[in-house]
């Protein structure tokens, strides 16, 4: 091996356990305030859903029409955001392969606390037509907390909008606490995730 090769190896050698590179803290529950302000915030959360523009599976093809003049979800204060930091809604659109799961977990963990997940299509519920695939998961809520499932293969945009309505209702009722749930049962979720993902090359929690 030449010196140049060594040099190259040194550069692209990720070290995910390096505490200088990744924050190793674990998520904490942030309890709801039981007051009027919290209600107000819930209302705002429900009416300003920013969904992460991340098409994880084939179902994302059904999300495009939502932005068009025909369905126009902007009416409901729903808008796509390109960065998980600013989004509070994650739509898992369809089957989740092992490879995608890793990205989903990372993106989900990067979203800030009130965060909501909609499972889109049968695949997220029980694997759907991929239920016995070697490379997909069957139940999404073993891996991240899901607020609303929208069944179908594929569900139409109308169904999706119905799902949004359902989600809004949940949020206003104060039941959209997926993030806290995730923090609470973090060990369980992580164990499930690590069962599936063999080449775990990230910190336990992706801040």
């Amino acid at each position, binding site marked *: 091996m030449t010196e140049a090769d060594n040099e190259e190896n040194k550069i692209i050698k990720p070290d995910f356990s390096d505490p200088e590179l990744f924050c190793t*803290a674990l998520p904490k529950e942030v309890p709801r305030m039981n007051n009027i302000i919290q209600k107000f915030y819930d209302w705002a959360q429900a009416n300003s859903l920013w969904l992460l523009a991340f098409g994880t599976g084939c179902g994302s093809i059904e999300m495009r029409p939502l932005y068009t003049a025909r369905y126009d979800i902007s009416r409901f204060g729903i808008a796509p955001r390109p960065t998980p930091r600013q989004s509070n809604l994650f739509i898992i659109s369809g089957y989740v392969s092992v490879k995608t799961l890793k990205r989903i977990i990372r993106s989900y963990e990067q979203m800030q606390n009130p965060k909501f997940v909609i499972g889109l299509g049968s695949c997220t519920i029980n694997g759907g037509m991929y239920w016995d695939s070697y490379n997909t998961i069957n139940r999404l809520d073993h891996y991240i907390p899901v607020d609303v499932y929208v069944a179908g293969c594929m569900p139409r945009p109308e169904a999706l909008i119905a799902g949004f309505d359902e989600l809004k209702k949940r949020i206003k009722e104060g039941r959209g606490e997926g993030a806290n749930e995730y923090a609470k049962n973090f060990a369980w979720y992580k164990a499930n995730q690590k069962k599936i993902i063999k080449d775990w090359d990230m910190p336990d929690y*992706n801040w």
Partner: protein
Amino acid sequence: MVNPLYIVAILLGTGFLLPLISKAGRRVALTVFFMSLIAVSAISYQWLWSFLFDGQAPAMFYTAGVEPPLSINFLLGFKEAIFITAVNLIAVVGAIYMSTQIKETGYKAMILFLLMVLGLNGLILTADIFNLFVFLEITSIATFSLVGMDLKLNSLTGGLKYMIAGGLASVFLLLGIIILYSLTGTLGIESMSQYVLNVDNVKLLSIGSFLLIFSFIIEMKQFPSNGWAIDAYDGVNPGITGLASATGTAAVFYSLYKIMPIVSDEILSMIIFIGSLTFVVSNLMGLMQTSPRRMLGYSSVAQMGLVMAAAAWSVFSQNEGLFFAAVLPLLLNHFFAKAGLFWITGIIKKNDYRKWGVIRENKVLLGIFIVMVLALTGMPPFPGFWGKWNLVLDLSANFEFFWIFIILLGSLFEAGYMLKWLGVTLKKTYEKDIVAYDSYKVLAIEIVNIMLLIVSFYYFFRQNHTHMGYYLPYTAGLALLGLRFLPEKIKGVLSLASIFLYGYLFLTHQSGFPLFFNAMFVFGAFVLTIATLNRKKKSSTFYGLLMLMIGSLIALVNAENILNFFISWEIMTVTSYLLIHRGRDSEKESFSYIMFSLGGAFLILMGFALAYSENPQALGYGIFSIANENSMTAFILISLGFLIKTAALGVHIWIAGAYSKAEDDVTPFISALLSKAGIFGFVMLLLTMGIPRTEYIDLAYILSWIGALTALIGTMMAIHEENAKRLLAYSSMGQVGYIILALSIMSGLGWTAAMFQMINHFLIKGVLFLAIAGVIFRTGTADMYKMGGLIKKMPWSFTAVMFGIIAISGVPPLTGFGAKWLLYEALIEKGWYLQTGAAFFASTVAFLYCFRLIHAIFLGQPKNEFRNVKEAPAWFIVPQYILIMVIFLFSVFPKLLIEQITRIVEPVFGQGVTWTDGTAYTSLGYWNGTTVMIIVGTIFVVLTAGLLIKMPKIQKVKQFNIVFSAERPETPELTHFAYEFFRPYRRALGWMIAPYAKNFWAAVSEWTYTISDSLRKIYTGNTQTYIFYILMMSVVLFYVTVGVK
């Protein structure tokens, strides 16, 4: 007084008797040899002494008891006394230097040496033209024999060439003598110069005097009949070469000077022409040399050309005083420096100047080497400087501007190869080699060096009638050079103390612009020197040079006349060059710096000369106030010189290299303080001269565009630099462009803006360069893309840089905005709208490099290798924050500064800014720095508080906890976006920074070198070619001077 004929008698008698004396043993012979040399020297010293201190009148001694012109006579005046003293001194020293060789060769070598000295003395003393010939032959033949003495091939070849040329010269000389004799009937020089006036046969007379002078032109090794001489210098034993180059040429020169009164003005003009031509062409050819001896050969030839031309000029213009003022210092400079350098080449036997680093092992020799090279390049206080200065001023008083140009051009070429040699010697790594530093040789060189210094100081004090307080600023530097053995910290503290003392001494006595500049220099120097205390590595010269540079700045401001101004300017140039040169791998860059600086200095000198020509009595700044047809040219030349120092567009190419390669704690000085020297020059020039304008050309307008474009292009170039120091260097260029732009407005507001911007730039560049110096000190690299994320490791440096960039980019509320505000108000008031636009564009582009600087270094992804870096040492941090405090002071209370500026500007241009409470009013607008600061501060505090209160608990995350499109960053290097940051900008606007200037100067330098290289090829080494040149030159000059019927 001892009869000078005893010189002849002693030398000759000893010479004749030596074969017998040597029978008593070598020791005895050597003793007698030295005794006679010393005796002869004693005679000459005695004469010189009585001329200097006893008011001795010139004396004449004739032979045979018959008065001249029937008999031969010796004439011993002050000049002769100087020359024989110098020659005999070098003879003794040379004998010491060559003692081993002489001992080995035996008594015959002593005879030859003695008789050579005899010939030299005779040449100087005799007042008979044929006797001159005889002594010339004695000198030549003795020299030839000494040249061939070591029997090496090169010595013999060189000697033969030398002899053939000498033979031809004597043919012309004899022919000339006989013709002149036949016309005048006398051989005495004095009587001849009287009788020639009565000669009817003018044609024959001019032929005769032409032939006479032509032979001396050959003997003086003038271009192109000098190939043989350079070959001889190259090939021959350096001991002899040093002697011949110094004493031989001096004596021959003096005899030429003696016969100059005989010849007509046309022939004197020819001498001037040939001398100047030789000076330029030989120095040009010297540029391509790699062999130091050959380099010195070209330099010798060139110097002799200059001296000869100057002497001919002094005779031509019948200005006896010029001989002492210009010719003698030039000659003595050459005399001692060349002898010393040639002798050094005899110790360091490297035939390639790039291998001369080995001299660094002997500090004494190195010091002498530096002194002599600087002396040859004509730096003050060495005599060469005084010679050139006086010559240039005298020429200008007679409106001979072309010759001034020629002289300065030649000097620039000479400085080119001399400083290249010096630069490489000081820096380049060298092969370890055993060099025999024979103590007697070093002793000889040291004596010569001391003589050079004595002559330097003699001229220094002779020329300067200003009070000695002017030289006070240099004392600390010189003292520190003397105290170089002290530990660095102590020297640093001493420096600080002396700067403080300077401040106390000077600031209390000054007023107006000098006070303003001096306050800046003293304060800046003090603060920036604190950072140098961080130095750990021992350096014998650093603080000395630094204090000399600071001293030169202070002295520059103190200068009462252009002479003092120019001396300080030159000292500043040299010391800053040496300081820049200390940096790593800085040879090329510092060379480019010194060449531009020297070129600028010469332009300034030429401008001074032009201005001086109208009023040849005074040297004060008043000379600029005289308006005449030259004043515009003078203005252009002087401003060009200052523009080079401030790195204006077109002459800016040195700036990035020099700034970036200088040591990190030196760069702040150069950027923050040194660049202001050019501004000071501009201020003084504009104050006294204004900006000349004619019906067609408005120089102020041109200057304003230079300033605006410098600002714009400098900034444009800064944004594409990867190296932090280069970036800041170009930023400096742009910022100083604003100052020039503001100065060119020539209004109260404009100058207020200029001064404000100057202070602003001084403060900010001090902070930024110091901060970067601290970062480089810790990380070891100046490449910004290699760093990143250092904010966590170096928060203090980051904060300093942040304030720096906010201030430099002109964003309110810091001082930078004040500068911009004043500038635009002034520009719009003046009606220069397009320049305003350009300046505005430049100031917005400045954001780009500001952001890049802080982002690439402090923000973004930290690199693994810099995980353990610490905050920069307090030595760097403390001065930064001192400066930042000043920035804040002036930001909150701009009135403090602007009022001071108004006070000095008002008497010249009237008030630019008026005040009501804290608000500054101009004719266009208003600004209240205090309320802006308060409002912004309040908003900022309120919002911060708001965020602190409202913010949920924050999880601090690490560098890779970023949203990376659901991926994970690979490495910091691949994630940190810093390399070629503004590439799209370059694609779109790259045409603005196409390297026209760089290509132009590269072409200039390449052409110069190419011309030099092809020109030197005329010296083929073939003796017959040289004979051909000599004869051809005789024919050409004959037809030019005497003409065809």
